[in-house]
C-alpha cells in the first residue's frame, strides 16, 4: 500500500500528513531533490528518495503517487508515472502548456490509469451545495452569476520572483485562476464562449495582479469573474459567488451559503427546507487544514487502493479528472491570449 509523494514543499507536506494517517505507518515515502529536505524527512522517520528515477528503480510497488512539484515539472513526472500505470494525484494546474496537458490526457486515455487533479475548491462544502442546486435544477436554470477570488498574496513589488512572472507560471491568473475557473466549470458546466478578459497590475510588472473575465456556459448561464491577489483587506484568500436562478438567488462563500427563494417559486416545502437547512462540515478520517483537503485524498486513495475510506456523503465523481485539468489549462491560455498577456 505504498504511496510516493513527489515534492516535499508545503503542499507535499500537507498531503503526506493526511495520507500517512490514512495508511499504515511507513507506507508514505517522499521524493525531493533538496538534501536538507531529505535530511529533515529522514529524521522524522520518513523514507526518502533523491529522484523519481531512484524511487521507481526500487522493488517497491507504488499504488499511487502525488505530484506536488513546481508546475513546470509536472509533465515529465506525470508522463513517467502514467507510463508505468501508477495512479496519480496531480496538484493544479496540470501543466503550463495546453498542448502538453493534451498529451497527458491522451496518455491517460490509452492507459486507463487513474488521474485525479488537486482542484481542491470543488470540495468546499458551500460550493458543493451550490453545485447540487445548479445540477438538480431545484431553483430552475442559472441565469447569470458573479464569482470572485480575492486575497492578499502580493502586497508589495516582487518583480524578480517567478511568482509574479506570468511566463514562468506566476501571476494571479496562474495562481488563483485554476481554483476559480475550475469551480465555475464544476458548478455551471462547460464554458462555451469567452467574451472578455482584461488584466491590470498593482505591484507586478511581468504578470497580472487582477483579472476581469466574462464568459458564457453551454447551459446559457453568463458569468463575470474577478481574480485579485492584492486585496489587503483580506486575512486569507477566499472565494464567493452571487448567482441568479429562475426562482431565486444564492450567495455562497468558503464558509456559508444563503438561498433566497422567489415568491411563487414552484418548490415543495421539502425542497425549500433542504435548501435552507444549516450546514455542518463533513466528517473526515483525519482533519489537518480544512475538510476539503482530506476529502480529495480520501477519494483518491479509495480509488487507487479499491477500499472504502470516505465517511462523508460526497459523490466521488466530484473529483477533478485529467480532462478537467486540461480544460482549465486551455481556459487560462485563452484568457491570457485575449487579455494580451501572451
Amino acid at each position: 500500500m505504498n504511496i510516493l509523494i513527489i515534492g516535499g514543499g508545503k503542499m507535499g507536506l500537507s498531503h503526506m500528513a493526511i495520507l500517512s494517517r490514512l495508511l499504515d505507518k511507513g507506507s508514505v515515502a517522499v521524493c525531493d531533490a533538496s538534501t536538507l529536505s531529505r535530511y529533515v524527512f529522514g529524521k522524522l522517520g520518513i523514507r526518502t528518495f533523491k529522484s523519481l528515477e531512484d524511487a521507481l528503480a526500487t522493488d517497491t510497488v507504488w499504488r499511487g503517487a502525488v505530484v506536488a512539484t513546481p508546475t513546470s515539472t509536472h509533465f515529465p513526472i506525470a508522463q513517467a508515472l502514467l507510463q508505468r500505470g501508477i495512479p496519480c494525484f496531480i496538484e493544479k494546474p496540470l501543466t503550463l502548456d495546453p498542448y502538453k496537458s493534451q498529451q497527458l490526457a491522451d496518455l491517460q486515455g490509452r492507459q486507463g490509469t487513474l488521474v485525479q487533479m488537486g482542484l481542491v475548491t470543488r470540495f468546499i462544502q458551500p460550493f458543493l451545495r451550490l453545485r447540487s442546486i445548479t445540477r438538480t435544477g431545484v431553483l430552475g436554470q442559472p441565469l447569470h452569476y458573479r464569482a470572485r477570488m480575492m486575497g492578499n498574496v502580493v502586497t508589495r513589488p516582487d518583480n524578480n520572483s517567478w511568482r509574479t512572472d506570468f511566463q514562468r507560471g506566476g501571476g494571479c491568473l496562474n495562481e488563483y485562476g485554476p481554483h476559480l475557473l475550475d469551480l465555475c466549470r464544476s458548478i455551471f458546466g462547460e464554458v462555451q464562449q469567452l467574451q472578455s478578459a482584461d488584466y491590470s497590475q498593482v505591484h507586478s510588472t511581468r504578470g497580472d495582479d487582477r483579472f476581469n473575465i466574462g464568459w458564457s456556459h453551454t447551459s446559457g448561464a453568463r458569468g463575470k469573474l474577478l481574480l485579485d491577489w492584492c486585496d489587503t483587506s483580506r486575512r486569507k484568500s477566499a472565494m464567493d459567488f452571487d448567482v441568479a436562478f429562475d426562482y431565486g438567488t444564492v450567495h455562497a462563500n468558503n464558509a456559508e451559503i444563503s438561498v433566497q427563494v422567489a415568491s411563487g417559486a414552484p418548490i415543495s416545502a421539502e425542497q425549500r427546507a433542504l435548501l435552507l437547512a444549516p450546514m455542518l462540515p463533513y466528517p473526515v478520517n483525519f482533519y489537518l487544514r480544512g475538510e476539503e483537503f482530506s476529502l480529495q485524498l480520501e477519494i483518491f486513495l479509495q480509488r487507487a487502493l479499491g477500499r472504502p475510506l470516505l465517511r462523508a456523503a460526497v459523490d466521488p465523481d466530484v473529483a477533478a479528472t485529467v480532462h478537467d485539468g486540461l480544460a482549465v489549462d486551455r481556459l487560462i491560455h485563452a484568457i491570457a491570449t485575449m487579455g494580451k498577456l501572451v
Partner: protein
Amino acid sequence: MSFGRIILGDNQFLGINHASPDKALSLDEKFAHPDAILEVINWAYQAGIRDFMFTTHARLKPVIHEIIRSRLFPGMQYIPCLPYAHKYANSLTDGGILAVVADHIGGCSKRELLKCVGRVAVGDFSAVMQLLVEIELLMTRGLNVRGVFLQNIIFDLITGLGAWSLLARFHRHVSERFQATPGYITMNHPMAQRVLCDEIGLHAPWICANFNIAGFRMNPSIEEVQASFGNRQSRNIAMSIFASGALGTGGAIEHARDHAGVDAILFGSSRRENIENNIALINAGT
C-alpha cells in the same frame, strides 16, 4: 497542575469566525486596538474567569505587555498556544531567512539557543521543538504561564507525519524548563489521545478539541469523539461548544458542562452579557 473549569479564548480578538467571513471581518476591526481586547478580558476577570488561553499572535503582544507592565488581573493563569505560524511566513516573505532570525530568535536566551542548535547539529532533530518554545514564549516573560499548548495545525501535522519524538520533546521541555502544563489542540481527538497515551506513553495529557451537540469539526465522528472524551485517558478541554454559532446556542453549554469527560470549557466572546451568562450557566452545573 490544573486549569480552571472555564477558560477564556481569543479567537474573537483575532477576527476568527469559522462560520461567517463577514462576522470575522467585523471582529477583526473591532479588536484592532489593544484596549478593546483588555476591556473584554477584564469583563471575564470580573465575572470570575481566572484562565486565559491565547495565541502568540502579534496582535496579542501589546495586550500581554500591558498586562505585565500594569500588573492587571492578579491571580489570572495564562495559557499561550503556539506557534502562530504566519509571523514566520511573513518575515520570510518580507526579508528572507535572515529576517526570521533577526525578528524572532534575537531575544532568546543565548544559553538555551546554543543548547538547541547544538542538539540539532548532532542529529537530535527533535530539539527544534525546544527552540520553537523558546522563541514563542518570549512575549510571555513575566506572565503567570500555567500551561503551554500546541496549536492544532502543528500538532495535527506532527501526528500526521508520525513524528512522535517532537511531541515528547515539547512535553518534556514545557514541563521541565517552564514548570508549566503541556497541552495539545487537535481536530482529531481520538487519534490525538492514541498518539499521546499509547505511542508516547503520557499519563492523562491535556487535550483541547471541539465538543458540541452538532458534531461540528468532531473528527472522525461525533460518537468517537464523545467516547474518547469519556474514557478518562486524557484530561479534556471542550472548545467550539457553540459550533461557531452555526446552529444557535440552545443547550450547548449544558451539553458540554454535563458530559463526564469535559474537564474545562473554553469559549470566546466579545459581549459582556454573553460572557456573564455563559459563566453562570457553566457554574450552575458544578
